[in-house]
């Protein structure tokens, strides 16, 4: 036990504390670190230029999250409605792509979206003769890549509450005269919110700090927080500012996780209520 904890302390706790400390120092004239206390790195995070990148990241991650949740929930719903014996198989194949390398899954989209890729060829086959559409190196490509990479997690997160749903609740709702849509909106959806929230938080948190997908599918034209951190450490050599950016990233993550925890608490209150209703 002790050696493992020592390893984690030496190679995780200390380095992370170091980054936190770095954020309070000044950048040296020649790119090194000058050990004088300052808060200006954090001030710089709120500079319109960088705040804009934060907003941009949040928008891209938010859009990816929304799309992933809609597709993932629909998929999870369809799986939970399939015959019982098929469900584990569907679930397995829904997660399987996730077990391959992240870079490769992202690269697959380059193959698909490039000017002479499958989509362009399909368009040609349907009689399209104009310029190949430019799909790669767009914001849409970045979002598609993020959705593709994190979708399996949403499917898993949404499937868990859907499969545990008591079918009698939906039946009761219908017996009381509710339409299928009302039943879904008033009974099924509220009971599965914790799953949706867990999946959504996962996609958002992983997307907002991502730098590989914007670099590859956005062709470097779409800067996200992750790319900014990358640049500060490997290109601009401004480690204190990079560290401050990383801390801001962690802060956003903690904020989102806390919001989810609060929402989950409220949702479990709902569940208790729904349970009470069926008892009564």
């Amino acid at each position, binding site marked *: *036990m002790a*050696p*493992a*904890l020592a*390893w*984690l302390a030496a*190679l*995780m*706790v200390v*380095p*992370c504390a*170091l*980054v936190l400390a*770095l954020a309070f120092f000044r950048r040296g004239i020649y790119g090194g670190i000058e050990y004088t206390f300052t808060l200006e790195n954090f001030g710089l995070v709120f500079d319109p230029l960088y705040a804009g990148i934060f907003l941009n990241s949040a928008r891209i991650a938010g859009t990816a999250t929304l799309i992933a949740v809609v*597709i993932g929930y*629909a998929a999870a*719903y*369809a*799986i*939970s*409605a*399939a015959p019982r014996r098929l469900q584990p198989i569907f679930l397995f*194949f*829904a997660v399987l*792509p996730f*077990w*391959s*390398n*992240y*870079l*490769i899954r*992202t*690269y*697959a989209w380059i*193959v*698909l979206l*490039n000017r*002479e*890729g*499958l989509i362009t*060829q399909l368009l040609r086959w349907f009689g399209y003769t104009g310029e190949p559409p430019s799909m790669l190196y767009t914001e849409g490509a970045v979002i598609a890549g993020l959705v*593709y990479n994190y*979708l399996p997690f949403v*499917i*898993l997160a949404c499937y*868990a509450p859907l499969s545990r*749903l008591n*079918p009698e609740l*939906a039946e009761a709702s219908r017996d009381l005269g509710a339409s299928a849509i009302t039943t879904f909106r008033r009974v099924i959806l509220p009971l599965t919110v914790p799953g949706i929230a867990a999946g959504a938080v996962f996609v958002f948190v*992983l997307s907002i*700090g991502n*730098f*590989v997908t914007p670099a590859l599918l956005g062709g470097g034209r779409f800067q996200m927080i*992750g790319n900014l*951190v990358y640049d500060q*450490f490997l290109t601009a050599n401004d*480690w204190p500012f990079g*560290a401050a950016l*990383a801390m801001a990233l*962690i802060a956003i993550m903690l904020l989102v996780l806390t919001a989810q925890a609060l929402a989950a608490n409220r949702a479990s209150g709902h569940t208790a209520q729904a349970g009470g209703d069926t008892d009564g």
Partner: protein
Amino acid sequence: MAERSPATRRALWIVLSLVFAFLYIPIAVLVALSFNEGGLPTAWSGFSLKWYVSLAGNSAILSAALNTLIVALVSTAIATLLGTLLAIGIEIRRQYGKGLEALIFAPMIIPDIVLAIALLSFFSMLNLTMGLHTIILAHVVFNLAFVCSVVRARLKSFDWSIVEASADLGASALTTFRRVTLPVIAPAVIAGALLAFTLSVDEFIIAFFTAGAGRASTTLPMQIYAMIRFGITPEINALATIVMAVSITALTLSQRLNRGVIGQ
């Protein structure tokens, strides 16, 4: 669930088919093109294995593959040993605090890029020359967490009275571990090791930051990243297909050994 009209059922099957098409078409296209005769990466001109053959002669890729294997094997060995001991330690002393729990889960939750820059700053502050050894040190951090959680899941259903029985019968702690505890948790330990190995083979961001300069410590994902940025070649398709096949096989095996731990 309640009975559904045929129309609803058809709609559900359509949703399922579309989602699976979305998940598998990109990968299928990639795999198919790796067997494409032509030099053009996107137009089909006949079946061929020549890109696999040319991979076998690409020294940069071979040395990256060797580096990856070294990093994965060494970091998996260390992480499996430490992670298993940690899991047992935690389960024996159940009164551990929330802080310890957080410490163990942290490497799974901290964004890769943050851990990567933290380790980069740390290693350079120590004036450590970076290379394969620093990648290994870094990989153990997150591998350890995964091994520990897989083994702990198994230990939850472990009957500790048999350990006591073994001690009562005069076995030393080591003998008890070797003859009683280890055989029970072995499937979980192997599953954890396979998981750690795959994660290590696939890991890119942390390796990228802790490898230091120079080609000597380039791992396969770093090589793939460089190749992708350079442009599409059929060689990447072949390499991607092999890497994908290896990861999926190892993880399927891990999943079978330890039903229900990864991805439920």
